[in-house]
């Protein structure tokens, strides 16, 4: 069984064992002379003890030298049964370098990525002449550093030094799959895949690893080595920010919630808007635990505001400041799409909703939040849906394929749609066509009650954001509304806000991707319900509209995604300025305080009849501003994945076991040397603790022996 050393350079320290010997010899030469009155007694004593003392002295010397040798040997970290990396240098080396945000965690000597880079450089320079190398960065999307397999040497090492970690998540499985593609085209065999990572536990997906293992096997196989570079660190950070789920108006009270991982007791967090401190909060949880902080403030002026929840920098700086956008609206465009009119008494239920949102037709006051317009379903074009913040489909009748697709597309992004299906003529058809298209169960079944059997309502979810801040009396008032005719929805997995006492949903909300859908299966006319005459009807209508309009773009994308914004008012070229805007060219600016803006390319695209501008996937969190010519089109925000701050790391043995379970057995576990290089194989039995224990025993024996000698 071979004996290897992780730090063989330290074995030179064995020369220190000569120190006691030298001291002993030096002491013998430096004997001083003392005149003494009478040597009789000393001679007697010496004659009696000299032999024993001599033996004991040399024994002490031997023990001291042995203790030093053992300590030096332990410092060199010997392993029994480890493989020597130097003797197994590969002809082709593929380094999978973890470039996730967690690799930016600071340790005793630089960041984890610094350690990984030093080890990778060491591995590349240690390749024999003629060897080839490729490096795959394991960021949110794996990326090869070199265009192809390249010769190992100073050039490769130098190019390696230019790479940097991202603010995004790492995906070891995707990186191994990318590595498999490179292994397949390797000009030399055997190939060693060296995975250098902090082994953050959350990044390891066993199913994806199994797929990567299969890909590696199909690529001809490769020897896998594992080099952990992470030391567990507890650091505080922001993991999630929740902005209000409704459209905001300037001056109204706002509460922003932030989930934080606490770094130390009493940690203070601040919320900034557009670079100004707006609110502060202190966490009360213990270090390492998660806390939810609430920042309360008044909504700023209408516009899109750049927000930041931040704390003092620590060892993992990436999540110490999390960006978000807060949109404050000065006007919400509400489009009511209804069926063909049949006089004022015809399908006029939509008028109740229009009046509740904008009394007087929306023209009375300039400060009115809601601007309501209505279209008969036959007159609606795609752009109408795109331009509105909220679309109310009030007994629209058959939508037609094109409009139905537009509704589905709108919900797939961030639009809000309400469906009022209570007209007996078309409710059943909507339940049969539109609901299944939206992923909801249909059809709906009709319910009718006599005047005496009118159903009162029950507020099923009083804590829902729609009812946020309303007093209990208001909800009691709302519950007094009665229903005589409505359609019963099948159980469709929606959040039911309001239901009859019999349990049939009256207001049900569903999330579709980023869109919000409200289903109200009743007619608003008085012969179906007296809701429109309930004092709580106008507030309810407004709150529903604000919720469906959403809280702007407070929810950030994560690093690794491509920043994108939709172009408002540019649909189908109907907007007067659309032609100028779409002329481009489009640019994307990444801005950070105190740092010159980075200019990135952006491109125009169309989706669902709506124009959007998007950049390439970006590696850094922050605010991204889209510009076309001299026009600023809007902002996008990207934040680091919350899981990157997770402190749980796999041990090398655990990672090797997971790889083995995924189909990659015999992964060699390596370790770093104190100077940042790669030590010899670390998969043997660690002997250092035994040697240190033995040295301690010897020193104990030496102490006892020297005391006895004295």
């Amino acid at each position, binding site marked *: 069984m071979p004996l290897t050393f992780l730090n063989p350079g330290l074995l030179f320290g064995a020369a220190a064992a000569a120190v006691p010997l030298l001291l002993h010899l030096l002491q013998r030469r430096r*004997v001083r002379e003392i005149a003494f009155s009478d*040597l009789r007694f000393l001679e*007697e004593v010496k004659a009696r003890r000299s032999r024993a003392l001599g033996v004991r002295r040399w024994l002490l010397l031997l023990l001291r030298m042995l203790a030093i040798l053992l300590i030096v040997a332990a410092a060199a970290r010997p392993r029994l049964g480890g493989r020597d990396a130097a003797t197994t240098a590969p002809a082709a080396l593929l380094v999978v370098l973890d470039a996730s945000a967690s690799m930016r965690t600071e340790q005793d000597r630089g960041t984890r990525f610094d350690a990984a880079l030093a080890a990778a450089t060491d591995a590349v320079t240690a390749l024999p002449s003629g060897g080839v190398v490729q490096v795959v960065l394991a960021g949110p999307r794996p990326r090869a550093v070199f265009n192809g397999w390249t010769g190992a040497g100073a050039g490769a090492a130098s190019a390696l030094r230019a790479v940097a970690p991202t603010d995004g998540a790492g995906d070891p499985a995707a990186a191994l799959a990318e590595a498999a593609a490179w292994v397949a085209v390797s000009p030399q065999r055997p190939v060693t895949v060296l995975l250098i990572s902090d082994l953050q536990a959350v990044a390891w997906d066993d199913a994806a690893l199994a797929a990567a293992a299969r890909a590696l096997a199909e690529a001809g196989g490769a020897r896998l080595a594992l080099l952990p570079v992470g030391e567990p660190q507890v650091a505080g950070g922001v993991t999630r920010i929740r902005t209000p789920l409704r459209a905001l108006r300037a001056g109204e009270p706002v509460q922003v919630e932030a989930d934080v991982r606490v770094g130390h007791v009493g940690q203070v967090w601040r919320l900034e808007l557009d670079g100004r401190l707006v609110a502060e909060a202190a966490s009360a949880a213990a270090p390492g635990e998660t806390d939810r902080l609430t920042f309360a403030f008044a909504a700023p002026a209408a516009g899109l505001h750049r927000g930041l929840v931040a704390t003092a920098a620590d060892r993992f700086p990436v999540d110490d400041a999390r960006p978000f956008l807060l949109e404050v609206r000065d006007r919400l465009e509400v489009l009511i799409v209804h069926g063909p009119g049949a006089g004022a008494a015809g399908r006029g239920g939509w008028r109740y909703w229009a009046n509740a949102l904008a009394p007087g037709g929306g023209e009375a006051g300039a400060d009115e939040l809601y601007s309501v317009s209505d279209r008969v379903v036959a007159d609606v074009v795609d752009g109408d849906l795109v331009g509105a913040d909220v679309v109310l489909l009030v007994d629209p009748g058959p939508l037609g394929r094109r409009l139905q697709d537009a509704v589905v597309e709108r919900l797939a992004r961030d639009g809000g749609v309400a469906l009022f299906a209570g007209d007996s003529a078309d409710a059943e058809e909507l339940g049969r066509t539109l609901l299944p298209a939206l992923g909801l169960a249909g059809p709906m079944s009709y319910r009718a009650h006599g005047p005496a059997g009118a159903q009162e309502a029950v507020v099923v979810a009083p804590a829902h954001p729609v009812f946020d801040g309303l007093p209990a009396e208001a909800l009691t008032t709302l519950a007094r509304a009665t229903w005589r005719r409505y359609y019963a929805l099948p159980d469709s997995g929606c959040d039911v806000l309001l239901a009859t006492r019999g349990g049939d949903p009256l207001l049900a909300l569903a999330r579709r991707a980023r869109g919000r859908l409200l289903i109200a299966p009743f007619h608003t006319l008085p012969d179906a319900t007296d809701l429109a005459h309930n004092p709580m009807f106008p507030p309810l209508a407004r709150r529903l509209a604000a919720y469906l309009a959403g809280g702007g773009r407070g929810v950030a994308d994560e690093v690794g995604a491509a920043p994108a914004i939709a172009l408002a008012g540019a649909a189908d070229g109907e907007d007067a300025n659309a032609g100028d805007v779409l002329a481009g060219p489009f640019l994307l600016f990444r801005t950070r305080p105190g740092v010159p803006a980075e200019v990135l390319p952006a491109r125009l695209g169309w989706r669902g009849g709506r124009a959007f501008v998007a950049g390439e996937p970006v590696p850094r969190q922050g605010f991204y501003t889209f510009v076309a010519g001299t026009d600023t089109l809007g902002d996008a925000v990207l934040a680091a994945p919350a899981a990157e701050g997770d402190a749980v790391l796999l041990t090398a043995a655990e990672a090797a076991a997971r790889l083995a379970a995924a189909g990659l057995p015999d992964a060699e576990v390596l370790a770093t040397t104190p100077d940042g290089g790669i030590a010899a194989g670390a998969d043997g039995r660690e002997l250092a603790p035994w040697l240190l224990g033995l040295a301690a025993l010897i020193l104990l024996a030496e102490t006892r022996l020297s005391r006895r000698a004295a």
Partner: protein
Amino acid sequence: MTTAPISPAEFAALGRLDLIARLVVEGFLVGLHRSPYHGFSSEFAEYRACFPGEPVTHVDWRVYAKSDRLYRKVFSEETNLRATLLVDCSASMGYGSDAARPTKLAYARLLAASLARLLLRQNDAVGLELFDNRRLGSVPARAVRRQLFEILKHLDDLPAGRETALGPVLHEVAERLPRRGLVVLISDLMDATADVTAGLRHFRHRGHEVIVFQVLDPRELDLDFKGEARFRDLERPERTLRLEPAHARAAYRERLEAWRGEVRQACRRERIDLVETTTDTPFDRALLAYLSKRRRLA
């Protein structure tokens, strides 16, 4: 209020032997005013005021009856004791472990001078014998005032010492002392215990009372040296010994104590007063030992 006695080192620093002897004796006698050893003679000398705490043995009650005051009678010496001071001047007595302390010989010299002065002050006849392995000088015992000068002169001119042979030289001195008296031997007794005992027995055989002051250096007792050292014998410089004192300390002390026990036992057997002293011990202790002996003789 009590004051610490003047150390031998401080006395030695004064230099002049006559001055030192006077300081030692006067200081010692002042201290004796409160000691039980005062007044061993029978001839009245003077009255002194009696202070609280002093013994009432010599209070003159007649004077008290007349004057209502307490006076005690002080007596002067009237015996004619012959005392001979034997000072060992061998090379081993030249040992001093620390420059701040006197050597054993210097201590013996100061002690002898102080004893001579004290003896003469009591009108005793005092003589001096200096020796190493043979007699080096001698002052016959007399009680004249000039005798102190003679003794101090011999002590000032101490010759360089050689090897010790206490036994023969003690026999020789014992033969030469004409009358019975007090023999005071000041030596480290670094010789065969049997020879030393035989020599001292000779004095006893001839009717002398004997006090032995065994003077040793503190380092001779504890062997408190650091690090390995080569020891050189003062009496026979060609003899050396390489040793780690820390390793030998315990056994050395054990052996030395056994030797001192032998000496004590021999002295007890011959009814000889043995005063063990070191060169850092104040002279008062030695002088008190002498006075105790003198009182018994009186």
